[in-house]
């Protein structure tokens, strides 16, 4: 089997890569770091933007809740004021209808005017 082994050694001997291969590899090895730096900067910007957006939406939601609460309070005050007005009106109308000469019974059981 030795003839085929010798022929295989000849057929499979090492060969040089295409011209400029080493330069291309070395150039490529230098490149990714810069890309990595750009990616890191982009990721940082994105992170800051997302945090800002999150905070802004949170503040907007809080403001909206405050406005709803204020409107509810105003409505409650208006309802309470209306009720008070009604009570005041009823009191006043009762007072007007009430006779000024209210009979009073004394100790002996006789009615008399105040």
């Amino acid at each position, binding site marked *: 089997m030795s003839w085929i082994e010798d*022929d*295989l050694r*000849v*057929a499979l*001997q090492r*060969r040089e*890569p*295409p011209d400029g291969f080493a330069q291309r590899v070395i150039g490529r090895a230098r490149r990714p770091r810069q890309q990595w730096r750009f990616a890191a900067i982009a990721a940082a910007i994105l992170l800051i933007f997302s945090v800002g957006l999150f905070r802004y939406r949170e503040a907007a939601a809080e403001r909206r809740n405050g406005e709803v609460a204020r409107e509810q309070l105003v409505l409650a005050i208006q309802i309470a004021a209306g009720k008070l007005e009604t009570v005041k009106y009823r009191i006043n109308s009762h007072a007007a209808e009430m006779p000024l000469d209210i009979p009073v019974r004394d100790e002996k059981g006789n009615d008399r005017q105040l």
Partner: protein
Amino acid sequence: MAAYLVFRDRMTEPPRHTFADKDFPGLVKQHQSLVFSLAYHFLRDAALAEELAQEVFMQLHRDLRSLESEQHVEYWLRRVTTHRAIDYGRRQQRERRLIPLESAPELSTPPRTGDPLLSESLRKLVAALPERLRAIVILRFQEDLDPTEIAKILDMPVNTVKSRLHRSLEFLRRKLERTQTASVHAVRQGSEAQL
């Protein structure tokens, strides 16, 4: 006490040599033919072989600090290139990717051969072997590794490597004989027809 012994051993053992970024260009120039040839003989496609070799060197660049010696680098390159080539070969078989002839880079040096036709036939036959057998044959005859070293690179028992190598050589010998007989027959038929 045990902690003291560990500390003493650490202090007395020689410092480990590791590689730095500045060593990378030298390593590429030194080992480019090893990596490219392994890839080329495995894939038989210069463009794919260059792509694979570049990826291997990129991985070397990332893992450079974990390598301790020249022998370690050489072993690492053979191992990574072979395993990647096996993966590429399988993927290529699935995709049957076609590369336009113009995009394939020219080889800088033509292979030195005794009989170019015989060598080309052998390379074609090697490329037709299944991936693992192909890897064994290429590591044996391109890199001149013995079965123990091949077994270590391919994570295989040594006896498996030996038997597969024997089987591959037997297959190549038979195929080659058949090819040569067929071509001699064709030449004979051609000359008879001319007469």
